[in-house]
């Protein structure tokens, strides 16, 4: 029990630090992430450079801190877009009658048939590589998952006895939607969004690694790892720290998301 509490607290703290690093990176480090010192390339971690320096002599710690914004932005942006899109599409499917439901579900099937990463590849080929393309591509790939959950929840709530009873008391359609459908459906969907956030961040860093994310010289964890690849044999720190940052971020987001999900499950299943 205590372990669980501790885990949640740690996760929230980590997320808070990350938000801070993304919004006000200068508060966490004085160094300039783009200052190249060609006399000090690939120095191991030390008192001067906590995370060492990269192949251009730039301070790794500063690059990791400043890279938080770009690294998180795509993931958060994609998750938000997917959430909004999923809610719209899912509601459309649930309320659209039999025909609407079928049409929407078939469209979702089509999107679902292509893995998310390949969708971004496709988008990048058409619209050019960049952070925005990556976010939109990932969001589109995730919409079917959200839409399915929303659709299932809305249909379940609509068919429940308490909604039926509310109509029996003379409630209008709108008040039922506002008072019962939305509050009961929002929980599971939001929890799913938090859990998906982790997957989005992994995916966006993978895309940056192969060059389809934010273009240089923007500091970004996936791009940093791409640069570090050539030096894996001689320097471990350019590889380890950005990757650890990604892992830690995803872990924190997933922990918070799973707790939310369990909290909402418990509320329903009594």
């Amino acid at each position, binding site marked *: 029990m205590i372990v669980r509490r501790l885990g949640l607290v740690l996760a929230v703290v980590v997320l808070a630090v990350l938000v801070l690093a993304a919004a006000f990176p200068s508060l966490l480090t004085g160094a300039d992430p783009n200052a190249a010192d060609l006399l000090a390339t690939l120095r191991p971690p030390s008192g001067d450079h906590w995370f060492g320096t990269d192949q251009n002599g730039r301070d790794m710690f500063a690059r990791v801190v400043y890279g938080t914004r770009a690294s998180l932005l795509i993931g958060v942006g994609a998750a938000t877009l997917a959430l909004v899109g999923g809610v719209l599409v899912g509601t459309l499917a649930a309320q659209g009658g039999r025909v609407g439901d079928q049409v929407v579900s078939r469209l979702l099937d089509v999107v679902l048939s292509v893995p998310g990463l390949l969708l971004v590849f496709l988008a990048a080929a058409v619209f050019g590589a960049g952070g925005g393309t990556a976010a939109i591509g990932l969001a589109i790939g995730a919409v079917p998952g959200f839409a399915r959950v929303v659709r299932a929840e809305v249909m379940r709530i609509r068919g*429940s*006895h*308490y909604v*039926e*009873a*509310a*109509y*029996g*008391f*003379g*409630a*209008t359609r709108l008040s039922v939607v506002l008072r*019962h459908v939305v*509050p*009961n459906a929002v929980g599971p969907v939001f929890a799913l969004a938090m859990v998906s956030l982790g997957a989005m961040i992994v995916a966006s860093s993978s895309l940056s690694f192969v060059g389809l994310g934010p273009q240089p010289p923007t500091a970004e964890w996936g791009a940093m790892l791409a640069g570090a690849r050539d030096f894996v044999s001689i320097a471990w720190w350019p590889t380890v720290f950005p990757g650890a940052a990604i892992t830690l971020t995803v872990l924190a987001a997933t922990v918070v998301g799973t707790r939310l999900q369990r909290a909402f499950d418990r*509320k*329903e299943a*009594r």
Partner: protein
Amino acid sequence: MTGHTPSAEAATDEPLVRVRELSVRFPGVDAVRDVSFDIRPGQIVAVVGESGSGKSVVARTLLGLAGPGAEVSAAAATFDGQDLLGFPEARWRTLRGGRVGMVVQDALGAFDPLRTVGAEVAESLWQHGTVRRREYREEVVRLLTAVGVPDPRLRARQHPHQLSGGLRQRALIASALAARPELLIADEPTTALDTTVQKQILKLLRGRADDGLAVLLISHDLAVVAELADHVHVMRDGAFVEEGPTSRVLGAPEHEYTRELLAAIPSAGTRGRSLTGQYPALASDKPEPGRVLLRAEGVHKSYLAGGSREPIVAAHDVSLVVRAGETLGVVGESGSGKTTVGRMLAALVEPDSGTVEIDGTPWRRLRGARRRDARRRVQVIYQDPLSAFDPRFTSAQVLAEPLRLKGSARADRMAELLGLVGLAESVLDRPARQLSGGQRQRLAIARALAAEPDVLICDEAVSALDVSIQAQVLDVLSDVQHRLGTAYVFISHDLGVVRHIADQVVVMRAGRVVESGAVPELFDAPQHPHTKELLDSVPGFGDPKALVKPS
């Protein structure tokens, strides 16, 4: 290894099962406290009690399956002379299925849905080596035939969901008896079944007992116990409060709890009086029924169930009338269409043809605000109150919803409604899902009354409740009718409840009304064969004292 054959001597001195001062403790709960009982071959011993009494724990403990965290202690616990208390797991496994079999309430869940019925029945054969492998198929057919399953070869190849409830229960009994045990533990074996099917299963069990099988019957239903058991123990809060031959215990109960339980059973004999004794005003006569509030005329409704091409007829040419201040009972088995009829009366479902009128106007002609106003006048109470409340709501929010929609949720009005149903004001702050079953149902009634309805449709509203809780809710309903003159449509499969509470009754079967009329008269002299069949199947005829077994 062959199965054990029951002893030829009818009454040996040493009982098959001997239990003295058995206690079972879980962390924080004393589930069973110092119970003692014997079971002899050919005897049916019953443990009767309400939910939470610990009776199922007793049953499972005899198989060493009390559950994780259970602490079992007893002065004595023997089976055929062997001491169960020291049993290692290996000896339990020999006992389970081989010498003691178990049947539980819901065969659909009790069978592995992914395996065939035949495989499930044969599993005991496999475990105990009762017959050789290549004889499994024939043995399964023999077992299914012996429990009365027609077309056993086909059924053995099918999966549990393809059998009807009654056939499944028979197959479950067959699987429990496959390795020829001497004792069968039956935990609520007929609770989930229609009354007519229940009668056949009880007959089957009685037949096996007559052949020498010892039976431990666990049940909450005093009527079933009266029909079947030789000896009964009444259990409450983990302890036995009374025991003895069935005819004595149910005919002349000594303990107060047993008397309360018996008094709480609704039947023809309890008409017009309070089941719990707390509402003496019910004894006075009800006013004459008033005008016609709801009328169904020639109503038809059929559904296309998923997969099948034949439509299911839920209602065929159904006509009935609900008058102000009167209770109309709608009785029938599962699939009779009674729920659909109730929903059509409340305008939750539209009939395919025929009309349903409220105060002379067909529902079809009502739209918009007029329809909403009319809907308020007919409220529904469901069987499962858990699904009837928004899971996030407190009791206060549940009760306030209809009040808010009519005007405002005033505290004094809410207190008044709670008083009508006998709920304390302290329930208001609690989440609705945390209330007990009886409290939830009363809250549902209070909520329905908040809309000031003329008619209340109770769809199996008390079927999921314990006898004593059911008695309370029935009393509340009767009391409310006396005070407010609300009309009821009482949908139930339980004839005893309908005979207790209804003024008029409609008997349904497969979507058709087979008989209708005033309550005491119709049941005293039924005309239609199905009505007679229903009445015949009710164990104890709704009044356990009327059917006592000679000891």
